[in-house]
């Protein structure tokens, strides 16, 4: 049996170096095959900062290539999503993109209708790489949640000298959470079969009311807990007060995933131990890349080309003060995608 600590450190090291651009497929003349094309993207809600930034990046990429890209602004209401699909159909869009956590299953009949009208359906930043896309979807920009899960587990293992006692805060109403949590659990078990771990499952709409008390109770019930892993870093704002109020701040550490700016700020202030960042600028370009591949008749990419980067006290200043969605990753992707799309 290999040394688990070495394995963990290897996983971490792989995500600590500056990301390099790794072309997701062959280059193609994007301008040519996207000429006159129209894409409408429906995010789950534009009140979520993550979606706002992702949409900005996608719009920017589209502008570089020069096709019409529209975001359907909405606030987590199914009638608005339906209206968006209808808009895509009536305004003769070519691609309908379901973005940032919106589950295509919630729009089954509408997507079927859109397809019948000749639209192509994509999802962006929704499925985990291990998940099958729904039948109503053509191309998916799947995300490496599983990889993030492994990284979180490795981090907790490595930073506790191999004695992690972990509380995972998940949210299984968000579809990719399931493989995400599972990969944390599996990786932890692989690294340390006898270590304790616990899963607190809180539906998204109840984060504000249930995460804090849930984390508090878990910590009081098991004072040995030394790492809290909220799978989405926006949960941290409820985890931090739970640690504070139970007097566990400092002894119990937080590591998470998403690279949301306010959490990066919390990393800088020492409230959060580590946050796995994912450049949304990069992700937006990668998503548009995948979409264009679909329209240009190229095969789908397996995994959204957007690397995961560890932000901790060592490199947090590179994320900006205050932090942003896009700083600290370098801009290898801009160069890379432009080349890939034969823009330069």
């Amino acid at each position, binding site marked *: 049996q290999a040394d688990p600590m070495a394995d963990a450190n290897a996983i971490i090291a792989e995500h600590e170096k500056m990301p390099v651009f790794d072309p997701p497929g062959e280059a193609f003349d994007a301008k040519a095959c996207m000429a006159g094309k129209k894409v409408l993207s429906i995010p789950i*809600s*534009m*009140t979520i900062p993550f979606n706002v930034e992702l949409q900005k990046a996608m719009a920017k990429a589209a502008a570089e290539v020069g096709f019409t890209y*529209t*975001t*359907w*602004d*909405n*606030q*987590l*209401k*199914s*009638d*608005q999503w*339906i*209206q*968006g699909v*209808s*808009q895509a*159909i*009536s*305004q003769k869009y070519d691609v309908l993109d379901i973005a940032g956590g919106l*589950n295509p*299953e*919630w*729009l*089954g*009949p*509408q997507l079927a*209708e859109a397809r019948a009208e000749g639209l192509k359906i994509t999802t962006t930043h929704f499925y985990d790489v291990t998940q099958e896309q*729904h039948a109503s979807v053509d191309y998916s920009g799947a995300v490496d949640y599983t990889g993030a899960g492994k990284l979180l587990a490795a981090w907790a293992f490595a930073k506790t000298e191999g004695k992690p006692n972990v509380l995972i805060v998940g949210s*299984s*109403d968000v*579809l990719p959470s399931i493989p995400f949590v599972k990969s944390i659990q599996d990786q932890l078990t692989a690294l340390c079969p006898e270590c304790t771990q616990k899963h607190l*499952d809180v*539906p*998204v*709409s109840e984060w504000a009311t249930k995460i804090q008390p849930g984390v508090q109770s878990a910590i009081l019930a098991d004072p040995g807990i030394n790492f809290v892993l909220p799978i989405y870093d926006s949960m941290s704002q409820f985890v931090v007060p739970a640690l504070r109020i139970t007097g566990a701040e400092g002894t119990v550490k937080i590591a998470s995933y998403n690279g949301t700016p306010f959490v990066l700020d919390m990393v800088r202030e020492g409230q959060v131990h580590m946050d796995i960042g994912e450049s949304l600028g990069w992700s937006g370009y990668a998503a548009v890349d995948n979409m264009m591949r679909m329209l240009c008749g190229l095969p789908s990419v397996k995994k959204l080309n957007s690397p995961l980067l560890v932000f901790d006290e060592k490199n947090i200043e590179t994320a900006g003060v205050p932090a942003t969605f896009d700083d600290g990753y370098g801009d290898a992707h801009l160069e890379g995608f432009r080349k890939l799309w034969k823009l330069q």
Partner: protein
Amino acid sequence: MTTIDMPAKASRPAFNIKREGERFALVAAWLLLIVIFGTLMPDSFLSWRNFSTMFGSQAVLVVLTLAIIIPLTSGDFDLSGASILTMSSMLIAVLNVKHGWSIGPVIIVALVSGAVIGAINAFFVLYFRIHSLIVTLGVGTFVNGMILWVSQSQTISGVSMTLVEWVIINRLFGIPLAFFYALILAAVIWYVLEYTIPGRKLLFVGRGREVSRLNGINVDKVRAVSFIVSGLIAALAGVFYSGMTGSADPLSGLNLLLPAFAAAFLGATTISPGRFNSFGAIISVYFLVTGITGLTMLGAQAYVQNLFYGGALVIAVSLSQLVRNRQPQDFS
């Protein structure tokens, strides 16, 4: 004191500009919105497809609003409506998709679940004499827990296409059938409230419990029926919801609670001002959604939608109050 012939003036004055103004102010505001957005976006906004989608996709909210209007008329709040809706759609998905029941019995089970939850509300409100607000809040929360349990917090898709077809795919004049169901239901409720004895009793109970009791109305029965019917209609809204999306998720339906109350109260300022009424509710729903849709099409940011929604609600009611010389609204 002699019995004399019917005086001519006993029948209503034929036309009262003020009263009609009050009744149709909101309709006018709606038309105004359409004109504005139509002028700004003649192609996309004024397309029939846009309207038909709007009409179709709001059917669920309309039906939910109709559900809560009934206890509001009899003087009770029902905050559990959105939970019943979600429960019903989740039952449909679970039984139809996971357990493979055929859609007919599944719909019946879903409707029955709504009626049962309504009956539970009625039991606590009437047997223990608790304020309806707290009972329905508690029961609603309990039902939310049941939904999470039944669904394991998962979205379940793949609901029978028959249901989907009959709700949203099949159309009349290009508008999904769901809209017409909602319209028919509104007409039925209107008819029952205005033209039947049980409907009158409901109104009396809402306006004066003691008066109704002494006038020989079985107040508890009327209130119980109103809770149960409300549950049933909310469950019907759930059926439409799962037909609309072909799926069920444990949470998104709950967001409809406040919009439904907003529509019910806004609707009570129009058509039949001072009374919760079904066509008023419909107009309110479409007035608000027209604004939101228009703004979204113009590319307004998400926060503008809230500003419009809140602002329009308050301003529409304020205007209708101005028309009626700011007489206090009295729903009890």
